[in-house]
């Protein structure tokens, strides 16, 4: 029974990803010859705070069977708004960033819910438009943030390994986990991800949930961008595609399915943690960047294999053939579980 729980992709993937990267992180002294310092953990958590809001944002929409490509657009816009309008009062800048993210997300969710359009083209268009808007706000240039007090505050070490930024990010995961576990929203979001029509028939208000999920996604992305740019002391109008790809990798390693209906906030936390650990390992061990890229490719290839019905069937056939030729009695558990 326990084994069958562990074998589920939403448990297996994050446990494996986090486990492998944690072991590698712990084994770093073997490579560098220096013991791990609290600073290494602090740095990992800073890297986590940079990426994790996007993982959570994207992951939440993936629970519902959608895919919010616009997270990096809200990320860039949130940072730019926070820096431009938060020079004197960080709170005003942050509030504006959060409001913009919330509003953009809600409008996208509304479009997707009301028109019943696939979310990918809509959020891709928004992503492009938001990058353009951010770029035109600063004339295509980076914008510096002169409020050094805020920059120092968000990154000051707390208990050696944390910072306000990483604690806020962890807090966001805590809130998301509590809300989804403590209300029926968690179940309902996964239900509309698993089978939209069936859940609608059974009385789930999928339109409201979609608006909520995309609004949360926009809020988290914009907030993450604002915190990052406060920390960097500048806003970059074009963060590139890398954050999106890493966020998708983090969410997928967290055991979320692109088909929807599967995954947990805890899994997303582990997925984001694995990506942050990997980045830190690459930095500390001075591993060539391509090794990390090949490692991501390998991990994602595993998630592809887990989710591909054709591959699963082929594997099942092979196993069945092996079982029929061998004298060992085939175990019923070994036959591949059909993907929903």
């Amino acid at each position, binding site marked *: 029974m326990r084994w069958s729980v562990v074998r589920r992709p939403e448990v297996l993937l994050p446990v494996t990803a986090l486990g492998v990267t944690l072991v590698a992180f712990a084994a770093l002294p073997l490579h560098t010859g220096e013991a791990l310092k609290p600073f290494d953990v602090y740095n990992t958590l800073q890297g986590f705070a940079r990426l994790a809001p996007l993982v959570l944002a994207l992951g939440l929409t993936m629970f519902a069977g959608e895919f919010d490509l616009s997270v990096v657009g809200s990320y860039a816009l949130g940072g730019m708004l926070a820096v431009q309008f938060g020079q004197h009062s960080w709170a005003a800048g942050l509030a504006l960033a959060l409001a913009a993210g919330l509003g953009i997300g809600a409008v996208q969710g509304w479009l997707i819910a009301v028109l019943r359009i*696939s979310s*990918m083209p809509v959020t891709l268009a928004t992503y*492009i*438009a938001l990058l353009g808007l951010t770029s035109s706000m600063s004339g295509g240039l980076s914008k510096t943030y002169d409020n050094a007090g805020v920059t120092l505050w968000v990154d000051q070490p707390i208990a050696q390994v944390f910072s306000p930024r990483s604690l806020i990010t962890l807090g966001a995961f805590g809130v998301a986990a509590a809300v989804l576990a403590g209300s029926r929203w968690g179940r309902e979001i996964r239900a509309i991800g698993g089978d939209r029509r069936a859940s609608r028939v059974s009385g789930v208000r999928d339109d409201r949930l979609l608006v909520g999920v995309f609004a949360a996604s926009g809020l988290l992305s914009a907030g993450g961008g604002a915190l990052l740019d406060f920390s960097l002391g500048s806003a970059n109008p074009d963060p590139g595609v890398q954050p999106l790809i890493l966020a998708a990798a983090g969410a*997928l390693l967290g055991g979320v399915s692109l088909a929807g209906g599967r995954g947990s906030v805890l899994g997303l936390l582990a997925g984001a943690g694995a990506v942050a650990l990997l980045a830190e390992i690459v930095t500390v061990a001075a591993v060539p960047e391509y090794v990390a890229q090949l490692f991501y490719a390998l991990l994602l290839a595993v998630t592809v294999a887990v*989710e591909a019905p054709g591959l699963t069937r082929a594997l099942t056939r092979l196993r069945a053939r092996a079982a029929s030729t061998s004298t060992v009695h085939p175990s019923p558990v070994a036959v591949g579980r059909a993907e929903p």
Partner: protein
Amino acid sequence: MSVTKAPAMRWGAAARAARWRPGALDGLAAAAVLAVLVVGAATHRFFTYANLKAILTSASLVGIAALGLTLIVLGGTSVSLAISQTAAVSAMAFLASQSWGLVAALVVTVVLGAAITGLQGLVVGYGEANPIVLTIAASFAITGVATWATGGVSVAPTGGGYRHLNATPGGLALSVYLLLALTVLLEAVLRRTGFGRVLHLVGENRRAAHAAGLPVGRTITVAWLAAGAFFAVAAAFSGAFNTSANVNLGGTLTFDAIAAVLAGGTPITGGRGSAVRTLAGVLLIATVSDLLLLRGYSTGTQIMVKGLIVLAVIVLAHVRSAKGRR
């Protein structure tokens, strides 16, 4: 992605074309084109041959890649998120193999692009893998291997044959002629050949196509193979133009190509779309960007408007097809 497809959703493109009557939305589209032309007429230097050339040239490379992506979208296999990376390594191979002569270099490039993308098509077609995750994985793998192989430095051309691709016969870039020729070719293949018809059916309803005994896996694999060849052709021109290539050469090609396909009104769910539509999408984006540039708007504004155009077309195309269904 939850894509709900009602079985009796569409009555076939031919039937719809026969019943086609200009509706409010077609009027809206016509009004938009008219608006572009009117604003263009009021813009200094918009209606000049030099500007037309500029629009076509800027559209050509994205256009060729977008034609390839059209095959992937049409077959119902979503999009590839590894176009930039595939183009980058193809361009690297193109420049590195210049010493063998232009033709051999082009063959190497196209075979490489087709092989990389075709391999992914194989897993998508036969393995039913999710194309988004697979192509993200592929993008990491391609960049990783390319960085490892080159040591992270830019590839310089090993011969001068590539210069022929920068030719401008009749004053137009060679890539523009190729874009138009490839559009005609692809349109003919999609309309007239068995492969084209099967690809439409597979994209429309993969399960039904499978049940009908159509070669689903093979068709998708061939579509991805051809798409890779298109990406490689665009890459060869890009490499020739830049005279050096590294892993970042692809830039924003992935999203530019997706935007072009979507701006042509092709739904991402598959089964519908054409090469001509994609060409229209590329030209629409290029024309509006050019118009904004001439009127002095910043690059940021151009990008923002591109996003808004794509969004508007998605919504309009969706509303229109939803109306057609009733």
